[in-house]
């Protein structure tokens, strides 16, 4: 049996949820923050053969400080390969070599579609957001995508204002109809309240597990669509002792992950 110390913070639990989705040998494309943490936890525990890359052109970096962007200087020295966007987004991602991609967004809907373009109307938006960047190709072409989101009615939506990155679009077979590879798409939405997975038939997200300090009712109440609850819904497994040790001793001794608490991940 695994030991589960109870002094963890919510972002640590979420990082562990991400790590548990990664299999040994997976090729993972990461951004910064959570994704890198999740992928590295997996690498140091159950998936030593997983490898990481950044869209900017970096493969298998060994940064001496946490990277603050995918263009961070600390990703250069020690990497196995440093090329450019065409190498990672073209030669690796589009060519089908990437197993897992991490995504997040200002708005995520029940089909796992993600909006990072505008809040409101496109022509006269309330907020102009950064845009796709690498998100659309990662969401379109990685075999599985893992979505990180804040669980509230602002960040989750029945339908996003703008589909920057397609999830299941409007149903389970919509991706294939558009020409995307069968079997690809979002696998999970990891929120600060629970873990949502997707129905194979409808492409809609349902509640698979709730985090220890919350309840099914609370989560359903915080979700802006009628959230279905799995028959086998259960409490999310808290961080294991080994996972916390890797995070705190090896990956993030300064515990920079705490900044996510200020961003609402509590």
């Amino acid at each position: 049996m695994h030991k589960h110390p109870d002094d963890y913070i919510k972002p640590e639990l979420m990082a562990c949820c991400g790590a548990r989705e990664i299999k040994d040998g997976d090729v993972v494309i990461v951004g910064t923050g959570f994704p890198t943490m999740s992928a590295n936890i997996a690498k140091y525990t159950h998936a030593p053969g997983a490898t990481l890359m950044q869209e900017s052109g970096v493969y298998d970096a060994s940064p001496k400080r946490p990277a603050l962007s995918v263009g961070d200087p600390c990703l250069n020295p020690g990497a196995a390969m440093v090329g450019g966007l065409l190498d990672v987004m073209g030669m690796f991602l589009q060519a089908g070599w990437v197993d897992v991609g991490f995504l997040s967004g200002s708005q995520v809907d029940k089909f796992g579609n993600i909006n990072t373009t505008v809040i409101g109307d496109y022509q006269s938006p309330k907020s102009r957001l950064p845009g796709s960047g690498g998100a659309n190709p990662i969401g379109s072409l990685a075999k599985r995508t893992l979505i990180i989101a804040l669980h509230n009615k602002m960040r989750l939506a029945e339908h996003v204002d703008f589909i920057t990155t397609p999830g299941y679009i409007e149903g389970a077979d919509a991706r294939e109809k558009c020409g995307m590879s069968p079997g690809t798409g979002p696998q999970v939405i990891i929120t600060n309240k629970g873990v949502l997975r997707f129905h194979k038939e409808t492409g809609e997200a349902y509640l698979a597990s709730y985090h220890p300090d919350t309840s099914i009712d609370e989560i359903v109440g915080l979700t802006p669509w009628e959230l279905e609850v799995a028959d086998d819904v259960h409490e999310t497994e808290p961080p294991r002792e080994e996972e916390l040790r890797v995070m705190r001793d090896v990956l993030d001794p300064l515990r920079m992950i705490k900044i996510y608490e200020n961003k609402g991940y509590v």
Partner: protein
Amino acid sequence: MGKVITMKEAIARHVNDGDFIFIGGYICRTPFAAIHEIIRQAKKGLTITRSNAADDFDMMIGAGVVRRFIGTFLSLGLYGLGRCYRRSIEKGVPFKIEVEEYSNLSLPMMLMAGAMGMPFVPVRDMVGSDLLNVKSFMGDDKYKIIESPFDGRPILLVPALHPDVAIIHVQQADELGNAQIWGIGGDCKAGANSAKKVIVSCERIVSRDTIGKDPSRTIVPDFKVVAVVEEPFGSHPGYAPGFYDVDFAFGALYQKASDTVEGFEDFLGEWVLDIEDRSAYIQHYIHRFGYSSFKALQAEFDYGYPVSYAY
């Protein structure tokens, strides 16, 4: 006439109002010295492009030199949304720029197509998203979907881009413009080679012999290059691997300044408009933050095993 000239001459001679410009960089090797000079010379009506734009594009938009943006993304990274970009799109300040939206796969591929002399290129992203439901100044030429002549399946095509001029910052170049980089490449090589001419800004000018000691690092050959400008610290507040680090504190300064129109204008005055050139910029930086701050950004040397091309 030699190609080694000042940034002032390079921008005056080779960047015209209304030009379409590729600007290289990915926080890594951003050609900031050139960007400041473009703003000082108050160029008008530019179309700018690159994947993953940051504070540099935000600043150009705020300064009013940009009319159109072929982009994928613009943010201040750690410091959130691009303030000037937001003001332009949301409030029309100083005016609303036109944006053609692609992704970090499609846009590099379009630049590659331009560099390769291909008219267009098939890509496998963007389908099923609203990126295909919005078209700006490129209109129906933003993309086409055809049935592949090979397997009959629908395939998305995006057009080649041919910028009038590319501006890149590199670690080293020779006096004729053979330009060498190391570290994160972004879309710099494809973008530079897609353009009709290239302005090379570099940390140091080296001899042709030095270039020849490691020619695999060259991303642009001299025959495409019209100007070579030696600009040490030319990417600040971005970085150049082997030379200096990202200046995170300066990023925070820009974010705070650009929160308001007044703050942004003060920033432009202090760091761009009232500054003569890059060496004056460095002097101002040291005057303002102290030599120790400047020194702290400088990279330590950590040489690898030297390569040999001998046979």
